[in-house]
């Protein structure tokens, strides 16, 4: 072999590089989130698309403002688009168009940029945006549930049209009707997503399908959703047997935003612990707080606040379960 054609590159470590980078991961997540979005358009009509677009435009505009101030270019990494989509997934489908817009702006300008931008934020920006919307416009955030436009013979939408429209809202406000949610037909409707809820949360099936390739690529760690949902299932199972909650553990797992939160928000790389052990502690903590809010709290659903609270203790978890340094 002619020595001049042999390409030997002399360089410092690292020698093995992964093809993954921030924008690749972010755009994969965006592609995955398209599936719940299509589901939301199918169940609730075009308003789901307009709300999502409004959230994305708000987040990207806010990111643009931050970029202009910092003279840094991060807008194409895709993280702002995810934040915008997730904020929009967290508002009821009947909400006014500017609601996800305002939430996304808060998410980027208050929860993300002042802490140093992507990689430094303490709280999940999308959930901080949701908490801001809940505090600012509780009326729009707790009303405006649309019954799915495709009933397909579900018993839940029958219950839903009475007053409150989400399964967990029924469980909280009309516990007598809640046993209807434990029937196989209702569970099937909740699994497919044929119930009332915020834009992106209702279909456990679509979220699961969307998350599987990401878990396979290790963009999201399987431990967080498995331990999170497992904790909720186990705790609500015990409490259901004790008669504390009218909903069966299956209904508790499938109702509300647990799947969306467990797969797409608790797994945010920035705001969840780094180590495997830390992730398990984080997920179990999320599960316990979710169940506590659902059963004893004032709100029907506790997924978003549980993840925000565990986001805050993430640095402490990371400090506690720090792995042994190699060689010591």
């Amino acid at each position: 072999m002619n020595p001049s054609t042999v390409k030997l590159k002399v360089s410092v470590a690292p020698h093995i590089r992964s093809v993954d980078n921030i924008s690749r991961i972010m755009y994969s997540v965006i592609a995955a989130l398209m599936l719940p979005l299509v589901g939301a358009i199918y169940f609730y009509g075009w308003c789901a698309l307009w709300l999502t677009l409004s959230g994305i435009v708000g987040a990207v505009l806010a990111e643009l403002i931050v970029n202009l101030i910092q003279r840094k270019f991060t807008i194409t990494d895709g993280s702002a688009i995810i934040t915008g989509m997730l904020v929009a997934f967290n508002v009821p489908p009947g909400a006014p168009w500017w609601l996800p817009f305002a939430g996304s702006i808060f998410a980027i300008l208050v929860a993300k940029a002042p802490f140093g931008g992507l990689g430094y934020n303490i709280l999940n920006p999308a959930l901080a945006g949701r908490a801001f919307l809940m505090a600012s416009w509780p009326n729009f955030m707790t009303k405006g549930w649309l019954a799915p436009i495709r009933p397909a013979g579900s018993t839940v939408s029958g219950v839903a049209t009475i007053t409150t429209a989400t399964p967990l809202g029924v469980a909280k406000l009309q516990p007598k009707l809640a046993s209807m949610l434990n029937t196989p037909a209702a569970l099937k409707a909740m699994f497919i997503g044929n119930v009332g809820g915020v834009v992106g949360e209702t279909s456990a099936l679509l979220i699961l399908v969307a998350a599987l390739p990401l878990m396979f690529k290790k963009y999201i760690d399987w431990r967080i959703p498995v331990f999170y949902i497992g904790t909720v299932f186990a705790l609500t199972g015990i409490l259901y047997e004790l008669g504390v909650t009218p909903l069966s553990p299956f209904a508790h797992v499938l109702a509300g935003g647990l799947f969306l939160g467990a797969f797409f928000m608790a797994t945010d790389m920035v705001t969840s612990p780094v180590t495997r052990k830390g992730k398990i502690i984080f997920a179990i903590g999320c599960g316990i707080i979710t169940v506590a809010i659902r059963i004893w709290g004032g709100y029907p659903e506790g997924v978003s606040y549980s993840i925000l609270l565990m986001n805050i203790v993430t640095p402490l978890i990371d400090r506690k379960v720090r792995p042994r340094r190699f060689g010591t």
Partner: protein
Amino acid sequence: MKKYIWDGIFKNNPVLVLMIGLCPTVAVSTTVQNALGMGVAVLFVLTMSNLTISLLRPMVPESIRIPIFIIVISTFVTITDYVMHAYAPAIHKNLGIFVPLIVVNCIILGRAEAFASKHTPLPAILDGIGSGIGFTLAILGMAIIRELLGSGKLAGHIVLGTKFAATPILFFSLPPGAFLAIAVLIALTRLRK
């Protein structure tokens, strides 16, 4: 002489630079009226207690100075409390417990300990006025942000249109909005340096 006043407003602004007296600033800055009432109350107590403590300065034994300062301060707070109750009952009701709590306000005890007990009466009065105005401006700034965004009003008048006033950003009326507003003001203060 002027320096004593300007220091209290800008260089040593009690809220935005020294970061003391944050409790009433966060709690009662919901409306412009409340903020003005609180600011004037603190301004009065601060000036009078600074003057009195400066006059008593030669007679106060070192070891029991704090109880004596507190008694002086609480005297003026009681006067303020009764006067406000009599002449501005609405604001007095809104401020509630935060008027009596001026007794333990860090700004007043801090100025007594750090300034009035070491200076002659005239600088002490000027320092009290300066710090009092500094506090009033800070809490007023908070109140303008919070009332404008949290209810679309300013001093009770709708300014951002009736449509906004019907669905304001409630967040700013709530405690987290106060923390955000004070963070923004402190950030702006540090930007100026």
